């Protein structure tokens, strides 16, 4: 039988879509859309895109593509904000005059003890009631009524050069003192410029109250001049936010904001106040206890859970305390020290927890995590019990979650129930305030020798200290920090930007007390260093406050030098200048075949620039000059910037590559030193 020889037509198939890595697709679409210039700033989460851009454009044209490092917040929209505020004033003053919100005073006027005042005065009164001494903020059209009242108020006002700077200053003021920071900005661009600062405070649980102006209530939603949906934009980056649309709510909203910001797990709270609310007559009801039905605090901790945790600690052969910023927030550092010493348990801290435990003690394991101490990471991986106190198992701490602390039972003490069992399964959860829980636990703890465990830890500590090449005739960044530590006797308040210099600071500056190290841990905000240094100095004028910064971080907010000059703040900036976005460059070196896509910058002469601002400026490019330069900086009465030209391609070691297990550290055997 003949088989039909008719050619079989292949069934029509839809064309297979071309599969490419997402980064390539992004660049394809950009090119397809005719994009020829991109403004941007690289960072860990966008590195693949930068690599694709590099791969695509660089080889063909042979020139560096036109990718300018612009302000990451404003991108190409970046405007001279000082001028637009000045322009805005005229437009907005017009709308200030006629409008007063109808307010039926007869209805509420009978309440005993209720006083009526213009909203702007009510805000000031409420700030004074909350014992606010310092406010950071920037003017603008719709906050003019408030600023008019602030003019006569006994509150110190600090004007930054950009709202982001102001927000970081208020944040650092709060971190340095434990009191809430207060920041004010106008509507629209003023409010959007706060975004990075609010997110920074949110991730690190910093008590902050932000007051923003808003356009008149009748204009909201009309795309009015300088209108933005501030509460919409800031919802996920604040602990709570609210817009005041009724004059009767203003006073109580401000009281509630301070209550929410400072209690429980602290965080930023934003109140958006339309300009007509500032002008309307608003009641100030008598002060009473704040009751928010949706906001319950449980600081005590469940006694049975506390006992279970204590028994687990007593029974453990190889326990480790893993301590985060929550211990600083709850004021539990002393209690923690006593607890750890009573129970005889070694302590490692997160970046945010530094200063809770005296790092000179033998049972201190220093920092753990991606760039933490090898001995801290090894201890966690070998532990049979891990007691987390006020920390949240972030990915930079845990490495690969599947292999994290594989043999350990996990106790988690945290005030925020949502933090418990979010990333790792917790065996014994204790919801409560770190100080109260530790105090309740203390009587049940027994002192156990654990000789073998401490011998093992001592051996790891001896074998794998933080180290660097001290022989080479270049300025090693670690050397600058070690020398600074020596000359300041480890007593200065240290602020940092984000990147390599931040990690070296955590590794080589040994902290003694809580609130001594101010750094953006959760969000990793470059540019945090200088404004936070200013905020901390304002909080502690009698203390030595130093910003250890990287050149790229410093570039982002260095305009705040003029704030330091204006308020005569003798802050110090130690610039670890390697001419790169160092941490990004390190990742490109290690994971992207040394293709340094967009990670080097052309820097100004920072010392000269500092002098132009009215600061003192020094440049150091020889190792031998380092001690004298630091000495000179510490003696300087003006704000002072010292530009250390360090080894350009120095890396932060050791390192757990992203996604690897905590004990799989690279760089432990890099230095074969005598």
């Amino acid at each position, binding site marked *: 039988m003949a088989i039909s020889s008719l050619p079989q037509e292949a069934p029509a198939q839809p064309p297979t879509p071309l599969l490419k890595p997402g980064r390539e697709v992004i660049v394809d679409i950009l090119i397809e859309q005719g994009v020829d210039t991109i403004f941007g700033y690289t960072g860990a989460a966008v590195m693949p895109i930068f690599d694709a851009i590099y791969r695509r454009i660089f080889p063909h044209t042979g020139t560096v593509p036109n990718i300018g490092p612009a302000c990451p917040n404003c991108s190409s929209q970046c405007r001279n904000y000082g001028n637009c505020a000045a322009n805005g004033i005229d437009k907005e003053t017009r709308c200030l005059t006629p409008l007063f919100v109808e307010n039926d005073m007869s209805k509420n006027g009978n309440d005993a003890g209720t006083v009526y005042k213009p909203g702007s005065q009510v805000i000031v009164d409420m700030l004074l009631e909350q014992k606010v001494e310092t406010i950071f903020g920037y003017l603008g059209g719709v906050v003019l009524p408030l600023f008019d009242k602030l003019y006569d108020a006994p509150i110190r006002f600090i004007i930054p050069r950009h709202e982001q700077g102001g927000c970081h200053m208020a944040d650092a003021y709060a971190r340095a003192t434990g009191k809430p920071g207060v920041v004010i900005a106008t509507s629209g661009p003023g409010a959007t410029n706060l975004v990075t600062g609010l997110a920074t405070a949110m991730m690190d649980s910093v008590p902050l109250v932000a007051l923003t102006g808003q356009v008149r209530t009748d204009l909201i939603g009309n795309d009015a001049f300088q209108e933005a949906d501030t509460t919409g934009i800031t*919802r996920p980056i604040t*602990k709570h936010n*609210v*817009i005041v*649309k009724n004059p009767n709510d203003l006073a109580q909203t401000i009281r509630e904001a301070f209550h929410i910001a400072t209690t429980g797990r602290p965080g930023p709270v934003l109140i958006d106040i339309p300009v007509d609310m500032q002008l309307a007559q608003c009641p100030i009801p008598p002060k009473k206890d704040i009751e928010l039905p949706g906001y319950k605090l449980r600081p005590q901790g469940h006694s049975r859970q506390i006992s279970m945790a204590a028994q687990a600690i007593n029974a453990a052969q190889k326990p480790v305390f893993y301590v985060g910023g929550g211990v600083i927030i709850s004021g539990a550092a002393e209690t923690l020290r006593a607890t750890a010493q009573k129970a005889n348990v070694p302590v490692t801290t997160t970046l945010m927890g530094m200063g809770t435990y005296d790092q000179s003690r033998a049972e201190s394991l220093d920092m753990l995590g991606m760039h933490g101490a090898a001995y801290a990471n090894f201890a966690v991986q070998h532990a049979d019990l891990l007691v987390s106190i006020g920390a949240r198992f972030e990915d930079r701490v845990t490495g690969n979650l599947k292999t994290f602390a594989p043999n350990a039972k996990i106790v988690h003490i945290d005030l925020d129930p*949502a933090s418990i*069992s*979010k990333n790792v399964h917790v065996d014994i959860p204790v919801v409560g305030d770190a100080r109260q829980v530790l105090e309740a636990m203390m009587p049940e703890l027994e002192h156990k020798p654990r000789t073998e465990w401490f011998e093992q830890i001592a051996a790891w500590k001896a074998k794998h200290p933080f180290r660097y090449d001290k022989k080479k005739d270049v300025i090693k960044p670690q050397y600058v920090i070690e020398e600074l530590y020596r000359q300041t006797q480890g007593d200065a308040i240290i602020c940092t930007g984000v990147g390599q210099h931040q990690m070296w600071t955590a590794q080589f500056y040994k902290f003694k007390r809580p609130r001594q190290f101010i750094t953006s841990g959760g969000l990793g905000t470059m540019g945090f260093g200088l404004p936070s240094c200013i905020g901390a100095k304002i909080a502690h004028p009698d203390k030595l406050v130093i910003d250890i910064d990287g050149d790229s971080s410093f570039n982002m907010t260095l305009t705040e030098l003029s704030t330091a000059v204006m308020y005569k703040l003798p802050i110090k900036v130690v610039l670890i200048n390697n001419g790169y976005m160092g941490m990004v460059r390190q990742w490109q070196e290690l994971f992207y075949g040394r293709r340094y896509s967009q990670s080097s910058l052309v820097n100004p002469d920072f010392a000269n620039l500092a002098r132009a601002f009215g600061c003192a400026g020094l440049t150091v490019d020889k190792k031998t000059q380092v001690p004298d330069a630091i000495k000179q900086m510490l003696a300087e009465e003006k704000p002072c910037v010292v530009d250390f030209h360090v080894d350009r391609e120095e890396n932060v070691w050791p390192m757990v590559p992203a996604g690897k297990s905590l004990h799989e550290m690279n760089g432990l055997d890099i230095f074969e030193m005598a």
Partner: protein
Amino acid sequence: MKHILSALVLNKPGVLAHVAGMFAARAFNIDSLAVGPTDDPSLSRMTIVVVGDDRVVEQVRKQLAKIISVVKVQDFVGQDTVSRDLMLISIACPPEKRPEMLALIEMFNAKTVDIGPKFVMVEVAGPESKIEAFIEACRPYGIKSLVRTGTVAMARQSHGKIEE
């Protein structure tokens, strides 16, 4: 697994945005969401259906409870609950098909709310499975349009079942 979360929230502007925003920001999926006032004018009730393993849903519950304007959150999983959806459905139905359509409507204990020469509009209330079954039963006739509320639910107080 499907969980029904019942959240009592403050009846204030922006609360829905807080809740919906949290779901989006934390990459949780909402299966359905029904919001309405309660007997207390200062409070609203949100019934949220979420699909996920117990760990995920527990995290959803905690994150919901963390929102300042959320007063109380209950997860009905493992509890004897009554849950109901409401649907309005318009079905293609020429006059000659009416008798069998009306029989179908009666079978499902549904209600005819509008009728025309070419269609019939029906109101169906009940547990989600019943709604799904009615949709399947109507599909052969041709569904012109369909609208559903999200699930609302309440835990049973007694142990007996009067109707399910």
